[in-house]
């Protein structure tokens, strides 16, 4: 199976919305730093893609890229899926409890103040539109600590995670990579993620663009809405030609340099390959595991 390469797209949503641009407001990472990726943690990441080849020159496999968009200064991606909706339900339940307690109170001295407290518990539900329903449905405005926000004008709210809506550009046009959005059981990407297979047979540097959707909270009358804002940023792939190597040894493909015999006497007791399941062999060895096991016994 091809190696999975991950690219994290970290967006400073507040500043990006303020500047109406992702320039200097997006930070890219991948897990190929040791393989030569440049610009980790900046907006100028060049992802190293090692074309994997057998030693006879034939292509061994494609590489697979995954993109994970995260937000700077929002709820972390590690909170459970649907956390915002869950908090909305919890706040509704709490408000109902408080309302129930208020109606049962025989001598409410300041019902207006009590109702105001309940209003705070209810928070601000975000109205969804045809463009924003789905992942944002049933949510309320919550802050960076997961608490319900009543006064959205204070600007203390958490932005929804950015969404990649397209990947295009030179690397796609020249058929270096084939990106697509897939459904996923992955809990940290809200059920969707962008992935691409990369044709690693053509070395070179290829740029690509990402269209990223952010959401700006707007107040229309008494309603709060997440208004989509589409911005773009660029990155690049650098495909190089490398022979396929053993990831453990860094040398050619072959058997792992593992001792086929447990070194301790206790371990040897458990090394009992059956006649239908020959044990591991040393490279170049024609002896079966059973025969080798016998040699170990003789050497003792």
């Amino acid at each position, binding site marked *: 199976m091809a190696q999975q390469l991950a690219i994290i797209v970290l967006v400073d949503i507040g500043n990006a919305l303020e500047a109406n641009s992702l320039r200097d407001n997006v930070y890219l990472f991948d897990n190929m730093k040791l393989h030569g990726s440049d610009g980790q943690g900046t907006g100028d990441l060049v992802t190293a893609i090692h074309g994997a080849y057998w030693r006879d020159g034939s292509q061994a496999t494609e590489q697979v890229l995954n993109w994970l968009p995260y937000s*700077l200064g929002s709820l972390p991606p590690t909170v459970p899926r649907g956390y915002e909706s869950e908090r909305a339900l919890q706040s509704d339940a709490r408000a109902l409890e408080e309302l129930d307690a208020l109606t049962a109170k025989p001598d409410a001295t300041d019902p207006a103040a009590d109702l105001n407290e309940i209003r705070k518990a209810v928070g601000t539900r975000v109205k969804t539109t045809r463009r924003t329903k789905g992942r944002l449905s049933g949510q309320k405005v919550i*802050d960076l600590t997961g608490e319900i926000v009543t006064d959205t004008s204070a600007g203390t709210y958490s932005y929804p995670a950015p969404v990649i809506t397209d990947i295009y550009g030179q690397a796609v046009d020249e058929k270096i990579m084939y990106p697509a959005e897939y459904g996923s059981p992955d809990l940290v990407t809200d059920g969707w993620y962008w992935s691409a297979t990369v044709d690693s047979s053509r070395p070179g540097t290829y740029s690509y663009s990402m269209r990223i959707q952010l959401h700006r909270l707007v107040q229309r009358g008494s309603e709060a809405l997440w208004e989509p804002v589409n911005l773009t940023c660029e990155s690049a792939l650098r495909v190089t030609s490398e022979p396929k190597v053993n990831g453990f040894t860094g040398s050619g493909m072959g058997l792992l340099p593992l001792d086929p015999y447990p070194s301790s006497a206790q371990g040897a007791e458990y090394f009992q390959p059956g006649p239908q399941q020959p044990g591991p062999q040393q490279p170049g060895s024609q002896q079966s595991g059973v025969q080798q096991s016998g040699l170990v016994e003789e050497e003792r």
Partner: protein
Amino acid sequence: MTSETDNGGARRPIAITAVVDCVGALATGTVHGNLYFYDTNKAGGSQGFGTEQLRTRVRSGDQVLWSVLALECEAYTAIDGIDIDHELCEPERRVYPGTDVAYWIGTVKKDIPGDTYYQVRFRLGSRDEPIVTTLSPSLVG
């Protein structure tokens, strides 16, 4: 421009995010070269984005919220503690309601004349001992 909102009321907390290359840090035994700090106060004058020496511009009364993001989403990464002058700020660990996902939050108690450096201790993978930042980020007045 600072983190204060236009209405002059509540301020948006300044969020500091540590992005950790957990595998790289565990392989080398240090977060040096495997850690990238960011905050949300670039417009307020913070500097050093993407480095281990982030300088976060703060002022008295600002709330600062620290969280961590792992480069590999399967890797366990958490902040174990933040060592900073408690005369300035006393970060405390909290969890998002109903979860075990933690963050650290503290209020800047007073204006700072210069840089106040601090260290962050990280818990990574199944390693028993925390790994401490070698280069120090700072809060700047």
